[in-house]
């Protein structure tokens, strides 16, 4: 591992792009787990489901990004269904729901994973588009267009969600339910409906994130296991429910992973997210921008 300033700069550049991508795949979880306190371990699995649907639509000639957007309403409904089910069976019963709720989402993740294996096999899948495979030449550096696309979509997603949550009525209601649920109930609002809506948005966003995932690289059903670490690392590091924090935490993880990749090789990269997660949980569980 010979060290050079040039390589480091390249790693940083790639890390920033990768970081924005990580923020994009985590932002759904930032809403569902960060704001709503739902132990949504199945978030990465739902996202991979989105990737595979994108793959199917892309095979019909649809652009992957368009496919991701088209899938959003369907995933929004799916999210509402999942939350409704979770609420009726666990949240409503209250006590001891913690262990079972976790077991439920863990089981759900495995069901989605195996369903994908049965439907598509264990092989890696990719999509085709004009911006996949080519790169932008910036002097000595080469930036793959697919990373730039993910970068752009991630920024759009993060900013639109931030604005949605702080400026619109329903957005503020979601934040309110995260802050003080009983108070919302006392004001005559129905927290369950607000949470249901928010979970729908989180899942809808995951569809687009899934499309990003298959644009950035090949996707296989068991990939959700690795992304449990990445997404939870970003959300916890960000501080639960902070959207700008999610972007910042994504960047930190992206840069850290890309630097480790450059200095120690690809076989160490998967441990970065999990290691960072453990460190954050051990030292500062409330994250960088904790509420």
């Amino acid at each position, binding site marked *: 591992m010979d060290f050079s300033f040039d390589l480091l700069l390249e790693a940083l550049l790639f890390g920033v792009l990768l970081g924005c991508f990580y923020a994009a795949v985590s932002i759904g979880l930032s809403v569902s*787990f960060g704001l709503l306190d739902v*132990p949504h*371990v199945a978030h990465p699995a739902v996202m991979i489901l989105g990737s595979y649907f994108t793959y199917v639509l892309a095979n019909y000639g649809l652009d992957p990004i368009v496919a991701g957007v088209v899938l959003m309403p369907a995933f929004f409904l799916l999210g509402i269904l999942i939350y409704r089910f979770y609420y009726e*069976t666990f949240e409503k019963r209250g006590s*001891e729901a*913690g*262990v*079972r709720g*976790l*077991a*439920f989402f*863990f*089981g*759900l*993740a*495995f*069901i989605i*994973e*195996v*369903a994908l*294996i*049965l439907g598509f096999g264990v092989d890696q899948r990719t999509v085709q588009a004009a911006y996949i495979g080519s790169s932008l030449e910036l002097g000595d550096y080469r930036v793959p267009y697919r990373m730039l696309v993910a970068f752009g979509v991630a920024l759009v997603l993060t900013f639109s969600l931030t604005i949605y949550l702080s400026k619109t009525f329903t957005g503020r209601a979601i934040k309110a339910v995260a802050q003080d649920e009983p108070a919302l109930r006392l004001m005559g609002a129905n927290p369950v409906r607000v949470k249901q809506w928010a979970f729908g948005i989180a899942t809808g966003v995951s569809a687009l994130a899934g499309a990003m995932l298959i644009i950035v690289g090949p996707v296989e059903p068991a990939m959700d*296991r*690795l992304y*449990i*670490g990445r997404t*939870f690392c970003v959300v*916890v590091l960000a501080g639960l429910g902070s959207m700008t924090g999610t972007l910042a935490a994504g960047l930190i993880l992206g840069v850290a992973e890309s630097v480790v990749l450059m200095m120690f090789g690809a*076989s*160490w990269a*998967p*441990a970065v997210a*999990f*290691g960072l*997660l*453990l460190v954050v*949980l*051990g030292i500062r*569980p409330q994250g960088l921008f904790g509420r």
Partner: protein
Amino acid sequence: MKYWIGAAAVLVVAFLTAISGINEYFFYAAFVVLQFMVLATAWNILGGYAGYVNFGTAAFFAIGSYTGVVLFKWLNAPLAVQIVAAAAVSGLLGFGVGLLTLRLRGIFFAIATVAIIFIMETMMINWRYVGGATGLQILRPDVLPPFASYTRMLFAVMALLAVIAVSVARYVQVSWIGRGLRAIRDSEEAAECSGVPTLKLKLFACTVSGALMGAAGAPMPMYLSFIEPASSFSLNYSVSALAMPMIGGTVHWLGPVIGALLLGTIQQIVTVTISSEINVLVIGVLLVLVVVFAPDGVIGLFKKFVKNR
């Protein structure tokens, strides 16, 4: 006393079966079922009694396997030594995880244990001595008499481990330790205020649980004659070890035993007749169905049935 007679009877029967003329395949399948019984029982000590959900079973299990392999390759250590050492190393890892419970609960603890799997896996992938990512072939030593084959011997060893694990879990459950752990599960603050030594108990539960999982992992490389990181650290172990107690019932030591027998047998049948992917699907579906419709597992259903009569 009744329990000990029963446990001794189970061991004698297992030993006699192992030296009898039953089809070899039975031992291949039964070994796996017994292994899951140890894992499920160990998981339940922390997850069922104390309410800390551990997704990291695969880490403890695989570290047990790797400890065994390292000792075997380095010193040619016999199986018994491998198992004891594996229990010690995984117990130590469990102690470390126990320290995490100081700050983390619920999903945070669960996610931290997933992190441990992947960190350990990455370390093993990068450790050339144990074969790295490609794995390591292991030459089994000669089988000890009176067993006719190595698999039969491993079956008897795993039966012994299962009885030990269940006995430990039963002791924990009926003693003051179990009462303390249940108090932690119901309300950690209230338990601490009432003078329950919560930290000590949590550390104890994590260590014992980890040690048992490690002990279950040690014979695995010998069983397969092979070790490799991806399958050793597979999250499938974690989900099985969690699903079996949930399905059997988490409040009683019999729960994981029932769950492991039930699910383990179904898994073996499904793996042979259909495929190993379906087998994971079966675990997932059963787990979700049980937590939704029978929150107290088979034991809960049974109690309800008795009460209604």
